[in-house]
């Protein structure tokens, strides 16, 4: 109980994302109904490619802190919970409470991943894993992140629209086992940053020949809107996984 009280200040930061029109949340599923197992979505990509923003957009709330200067440091699992909770997993799978603003300081524990529980409706059908960005120079961290895709139902690779699909991204993606890539979605993020209406179509035309064939599907995303195709693809992933 005391833990919940401790969490209150950091949870206060959570607010609905601006302008976000949720497809969920209008009619919460009754708790009694037997729900299918939530689809496990792992979001990967290079640093600052909009992974955390995409997770927040999917959830319809700024659950995770997204920033251009401090990167996501640990894999973060977001799942449904009746009450908000923030736990850090340390050695021997022990979990201890944490607050976001404690993370950048020197932690006494070796954190393996973070667990965030939230009473948000989208989380009834989906469990999201946000990951540290690739390509910051720590190859063993990159390898760990890529391994986490193996158990995912859906793997979303984020590529930022302004500098989309570089050789390093292609290399990292192709290094994944084919089984993981078959469950892959290419999310072109920051679509709202493009500098002209025609840019989007030209960019997507290139990506559809150069990158999309390496994925099950290509979708677009921005901080304020999630391509309906992405939700459809996630729902499809859920059917496949849940069957």
């Amino acid at each position, binding site marked *: 109980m005391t833990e919940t009280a401790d969490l209150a200040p950091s949870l206060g930061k959570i607010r609905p994302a601006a302008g976000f029109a949720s497809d969920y949340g209008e009619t919460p599923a009754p708790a009694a109904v037997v729900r299918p197992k939530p689809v496990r979505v792992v979001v990967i990509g290079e640093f600052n490619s909009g992974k955390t923003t995409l997770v927040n957009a999917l959830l319809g709330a700024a659950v995770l802190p997204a920033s251009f200067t401090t990167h996501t440091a640990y894999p973060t699992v977001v799942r449904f919970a009746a009450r908000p909770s923030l736990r850090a997993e340390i050695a021997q799978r022990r979990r201890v409470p944490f607050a976001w603003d404690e993370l950048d300081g020197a932690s006494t524990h070796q954190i393996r991943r973070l667990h965030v529980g939230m009473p948000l409706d989208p989380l009834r059908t989906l469990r999201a894993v946000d990951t540290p960005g690739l390509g910051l120079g720590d*190859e063993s961290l990159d390898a760990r992140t890529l391994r986490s895709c193996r158990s995912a139902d859906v793997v979303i690779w984020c590529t930022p629209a302004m500098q989309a699909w570089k050789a390093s991204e292609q290399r990292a993606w192709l290094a994944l086992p084919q089984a993981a890539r078959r469950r892959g979605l290419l999310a072109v993020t920051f679509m709202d*940053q493009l500098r002209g209406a025609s840019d989007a179509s030209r960019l997507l035309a290139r990506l559809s020949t150069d990158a999309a064939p390496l994925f099950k599907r290509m979708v677009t995303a921005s901080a304020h809107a999630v391509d309906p195709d992405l939700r459809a693809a996630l729902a499809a992933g859920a059917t496949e996984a849940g069957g």
Partner: protein
Amino acid sequence: MGHEAPGLGEVSPVEPPSQPAETIGAPLEAARTALRDLVTRVGGLLGEHAAPLLDVARRQLEERSCRIAVIGQIKAGKSTFINALARRPGLLPTDINPWTVVVTALHFRAAPTPPEHAAVFHLFSVDEWRELAEGGGRLRELTERLVPGFQSDLLRAQLEVMRKRAERRLGPKFPELLGQCHRYQTVSPQVLADYVSAGDADTWPGQRRHYSDITRSAELHFNDSPFAFPITLIDTPGTNDPFLVRDEITRRSLENPDIYVFVVSALQPLSAGDIAMLRLLNGLHKDRIVVFINRADQLPNLSADAPEVKAAIERRLRTELPSLNIPVVFGSAWLGNLRLQAEAGALPPSATREPTPASAAPCAREAELRRRPETASDHHAGSEPARAVPAVHISCGMAEVSAAITRLMCTSGIAMLLRQIALCLAELVRTADVTDRAELQSILELIEARRRESETLARRVAEEERSLAAFEDHAKALSGSFEEVEAHFRGIIATARELLHSQLGTTVREFASREAAYLQQALQEKQRCSAWRCDVMPLREEMEEAYLAIVERAAKDLDQVEGLLYPQLRMIVSSLLPTYHGGLLEGPAWPEGAKPSVAPLGDRVTVDLSVSLWRRWFSSRRISKERANHLRCLIEDDFLKIADELVQEAETYLTERVDYIMGRVRAVSSGLKTGVERRTANLARERALLEGVGDAEAAERFETEQRQRAEACRERQGAYAAVLAELQSVIEGLDGAQGESRMG
């Protein structure tokens, strides 16, 4: 775009006064102009013997430009940056997709008349095309060495795409075009797009001919330069291009620029690839890099993020590359272009300064996103942005980057070249000064002697003859010793060569064995080593250190021999004119701080290939000992070749230096000799008169001539002094600019 930033609309909409970018290279241009004028004046003062040296200097002053390479990953905004720096928005074609595929050199030189050809495009030769499009170039070669028989499907598919596209765009007979050179009187965006842009995959049949697939290089010439000093800007296709063939072309075609501008995106600054490239560049070209953090206007929360991003980048650079102090400039080339357009009246000024209401923008953007993509027909509609531009209060960074470039120029090879030219001119003038003073003295003495009595004159003539004969002896001995000294120089170079060869070879072999042993040990401890990487950066550093140390030692030996040479020359000078203290031939001729090229160390080697290829290597070789041996061979093959190239570079560098030293002493001694020859001729006439050949009229004529010559010598002394004073002030200016830029 900062819509989220509360109160951004209240930020003073007053733009920083739009000032032209600092004229790049102004301090050096002042020196260059002064020197060009001085070369002409010195040419008028000095005789034929100086002409070859002066011609070289004149050509260097006319032709040498500062080469600035703009490099970075794809879509960092390199072409946009060049457009803004050159103050020509829309010049180089840009696009949302990787667009620049050909290395493009833009030559800017202030000249009264436009260049004969504004654009020159060289297409690949038949051999180059075959090597690239059919062989896959160096990348393929390295891959073949790592995993024989394996060619990445991706590379193969891409080569196929390239061949097919060239055929579709240029017709089945396109190989006939190879080896051609296309010239244009004017540069138009359309022509540039035809030769340097990637172009769209499927819009070309039946349209304009699109040559970029087979274009090797593009040269653009401009005579109305926005820069002070002659500048060549080099636009490059981005690195980290998933189209592997293009990545290869870029790496190969960057030849020795004076300065690098490394453009990175503020959104994903300094990835592992960026750092690796900076580390390599820094190893190779210390003190010659500016980092430009581009696209600041695209930070989602500009006012809050900008300072933080900049601080984070500077911190990262300090941790990753602690040894150096790379200037970092934060800005937006896109904004720079926009301001230039606004200045030119192409855009209403409001487009660059009116912030959009914070609430309206996100909805508009969202609506736009929900629209399905339209056809690509409207692309290239113009450079007018569809985006709102609230980023008025940030600096576009162009003035700062220009200042940083100017500072680097003041310590670059160009500044050293100018200094060297100034020193060389001063030396020639001092030599002429010495000979003239000596001649004047002898004429005056002879005239004086003649006035007294003929006996004294005879004695004086005999004395002068002896002194000149002594000079001849000295000079003969000297030219003998020149040959000896030159042989000595060559010996030093040969020794350095041997030493480099054996030491670099040992360094490479020891490193390769060590790495092989590590690998074998690692494999014994753990069978799966998928994350194992061999880092050859330490080897590169070790080789560089050994190389520079040996070359340095050889250079010191050269200095010492050079030091033995000068006293002999000075002795001759004092035999001509014991009272002269003009400071001739002091110190080594070679500019301090000039370093030999380490470019071969930047070559891509097999070990640099990607992790996935190495994984394949692991799976194709099962026995750990065999793996270790193969690794050793790979390292040795690549780096022994690099070692050979370094030996070559060292030899070129040291030979250039010796040639320069010898050129200098030869110019000085031949200057002295010319003076002496003139005096010998005079003396012969004097002797003839003395011995009664010729009449009184001839004697009078001779005397008048001698008086005129003496007068001319006196006049020239004034001119020499003036030229020397000006050269001194040029040198001081260059030194001052260099000192300032070191401090700044």
